[in-house]
């Protein structure tokens, strides 16, 4: 599984230019020219990859076919589902066991609500766990929340919702402090100064990290804290449909025991959807960095009860997915590798893009290099890629840096016989993040009263493109906000008589436009078993 002789030839070219490149950085693309590159090479601009949604409150909005199919899907249950005897009654029902769900559960419990957290797989099986690079927060004297705001909104091509960005950047340092009080071990200098790095599209170093296990460290601490509190946790119990009361307020959800298949109703006065993204739908057949359960369930369920959607015509393709070896195709090579100085170079060992453009721009440049300029390297299975010159890191920062700062990455490749301190890594864009989703306000509320959202399911915080390190921040900021808001709501107002009557109108609407019902959604898991 080590590099083939052909790939070795190209690595020689990379080695030959390395010394010179240590003192050279390819210039950034002018902002005005970014769009031209995106139009030509970014998957978001592939016209026939998308279509308009034909039903519901965001009818006419475009999204990818794979997601549109599920959004327009039929429910698993009928409107006659018996809601008369809830299996559980609680104040706040949190659906989703990643970082956003855990943060929400903690804050809702602190606010005095009874809380139940349910999750499709194990608690912590989430993209949070896999986030490597870090979490942004403007806490250095050279930085400020206002500068962070500018970076976020510029990275999002000025489409982000201003209130949502404000909450994100203002809560940033507060969240870092909160996490540290819970016991998260951030990387620090001996005097306590946080070690902070640049990420794509940042004008200040504000990427806090916990080696390259940043998300895993945050997730395992949040999970442990939830387990220390009087919060009921139910695993392998995904939601399959939301329940409203007769006035249209959220009133809980129908869950399914993933192992026995039994369905049951959990009644709640407020519901927080923190179900994450949808990389496992493999848009346009891209491989993905996402965890097994990232199938867009929350978007499907929220839409069916009338929540609005935004920015679902844009997905984030992380520039550096592993392109070799095939066993780990599409898995993440953290942006921190470039943050530490590794340059992307083509088959001839030459730079072709500024290493830290916003992710969409960087990804488009990689695709152009392979597809148009034919200067990529092709693997035996036909997968193209460009080199990420990781050995530069130790030339720039000294021996041992990779083992210290990137132990997960080094281990990942070592398992397959590649030593990233000696050899470059072959990378190509991989499906990474759902930029858009359900519309929310800065308190985590949606257009459905009593329904709150947090994390990757949401749309508007990042606009059309998210910067590295702002998703770990988002899950905490909005998890906390949604948790507080949902508790407040649940303690003020209980839900009325529960119903799933919305399914009658939903099914009628599908009938009207001639959607036959072949697709049932949410799908819960991707179908990887060979038939």
């Amino acid at each position, binding site marked *: 599984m080590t590099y083939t002789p052909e790939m070795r030839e190209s690595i020689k070219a990379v080695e030959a230019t390395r010394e010179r490149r240590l003192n050279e950085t390819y210039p950034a693309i002018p902002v005005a020219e970014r769009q031209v590159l995106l139009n030509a090479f970014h998957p978001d601009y592939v016209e026939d990859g998308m279509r308009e949604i034909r039903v519901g409150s965001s009818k006419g909005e475009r999204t990818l076919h794979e997601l549109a199919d599920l959004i327009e899907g039929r429910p698993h249950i009928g409107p006659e589902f018996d809601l008369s005897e809830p299996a559980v009654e609680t104040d706040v029902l949190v659906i989703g066991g990643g970082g956003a769900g855990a943060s929400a559960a903690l804050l809702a419990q602190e606010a005095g609500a009874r809380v139940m957290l349910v999750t499709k797989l194990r608690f912590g099986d989430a993209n949070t766990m*896999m986030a490597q690079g870090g979490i942004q927060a403007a806490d250095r004297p050279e930085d400020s929340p206002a500068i962070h*705001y*500018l970076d976020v909104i*510029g990275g999002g091509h000025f489409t982000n919702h201003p209130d949502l960005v404000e909450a994100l950047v203002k809560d940033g340092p507060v969240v870092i402090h909160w996490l540290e009080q819970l016991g998260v*071990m951030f990387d620090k200098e001996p005097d306590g*100064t946080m070690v902070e790095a640049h990420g794509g599209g940042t004008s200040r170093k504000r990427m806090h990290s916990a080696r390259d296990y940043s998300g895993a460290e945050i997730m395992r601490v949040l999970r442990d804290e939830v387990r220390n509190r009087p919060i009921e946790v139910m695993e392998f119990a995904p939601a399959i449909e939301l329940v409203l009361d007769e006035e249209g307020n959220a009133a809980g959800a129908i869950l399914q025991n*993933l192992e026995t298949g039994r369905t049951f109703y959990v009644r709640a006065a407020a519901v927080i959807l923190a179900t994450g993204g949808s990389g496992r739908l493999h848009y346009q057949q891209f491989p993905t960095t996402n965890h*097994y359960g990232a199938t867009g369930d929350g978007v499907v369920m929220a839409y069916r009860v009338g929540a609005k959607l935004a920015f679902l015509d844009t997905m984030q393709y992380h520039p550096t997915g592993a392109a070799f070896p095939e066993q780990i195709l599409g898995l993440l090579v953290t942006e921190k590798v470039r943050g530490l100085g590794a340059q992307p170079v083509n088959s001839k060992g030459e730079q072709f893009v500024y290493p830290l453009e916003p992710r969409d721009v960087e990804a488009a440049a990689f695709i152009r290099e392979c597809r148009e300029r034919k200067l990529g390297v092709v693997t035996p299975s036909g997968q193209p890629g460009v080199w990420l010159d990781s050995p530069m890191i130790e030339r720039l920062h000294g021996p041992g840096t990779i083992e210290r700062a990137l132990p997960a990455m080094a281990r990942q490749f070592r398992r397959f016989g590649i030593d990233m301190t000696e050899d470059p890594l072959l990378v190509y864009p991989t499906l990474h993040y759902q930029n858009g989703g359900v519309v929310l306000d800065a308190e985590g509320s949606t257009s459905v009263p009593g329904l709150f959202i947090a994390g990757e399911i949401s749309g508007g915080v990042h606009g059309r493109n998210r910067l590295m390190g702002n998703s770990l921040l988002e899950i905490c900021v909005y998890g906390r906000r949604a948790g507080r808001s949902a508790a407040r709501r649940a303690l003020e107002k209980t839900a009325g008589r529960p119903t799933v009557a919305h399914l009658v109108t939903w099914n009628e609407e599908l009938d009207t436009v001639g959607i036959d019902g072949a697709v049932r959604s949410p799908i819960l898991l991707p179908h990887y078993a060979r038939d």
Partner: protein
Amino acid sequence: MSEDKEQVPERIPVYIMGKRYDVPPSLTIMKAMEWAGYMLVRGVGCRGGFCGACATAYRVKGDARLHFGLACQTVVKPEMYLGMIPFFPVERAGYDMAELKPEASTLFQTYPEILHCLGCGTCTKACPQELDVKGYMAAAMRGDIAAVANMSFDCIMCGLCAARCPAEEPQYNIALLARRLYGRYLSPRSEHLHQRVTEISQGQYDAALAELKEMGTEALKERYTSRDMEPK
């Protein structure tokens, strides 16, 4: 004839929970199970080596030793006998972080079984992250919280150490407690962080943010393009 022969794809036998399947040799254990027709619910999570859901024990024919790995990160070998360990019951203490003191006694009181560790090293042999589990358990017995925290940092909590331990230690939960104690109490204080949190609570950035929020897109673009960049 020889051409036909070349087109027959290579297959190797593996035994999934005792049952033989012939699978392509390039697959990971996880993908081999799916190739064999398994629809995975347990024993699968991030599929990227970070979540610890797919802890797997295996033997290879002709080798008496037991091997361990993550199903998503381990390529199949011929005559591999596979057993997934999707769940294993392990003790986890409850505690209130605010009440704990970062002292050796906290470790011993929360997990008295620490002192029962035999130092046999079975845990270390089982660790798919190649951590020195025995070493950090020794540090735990000495009450050295910082050492436990740092040595265990790359733990993915897959549970193989605990599943194999003859002394029934919950190693990964002990390590988590040590890391949380270190993160909260022992790591050096970040003055700049505390300073910024205070400034935010005093509303120091509200005016600057309000100004940006009200700016038109063109003005904002101008401000963004001309912002100064901190050097690498």
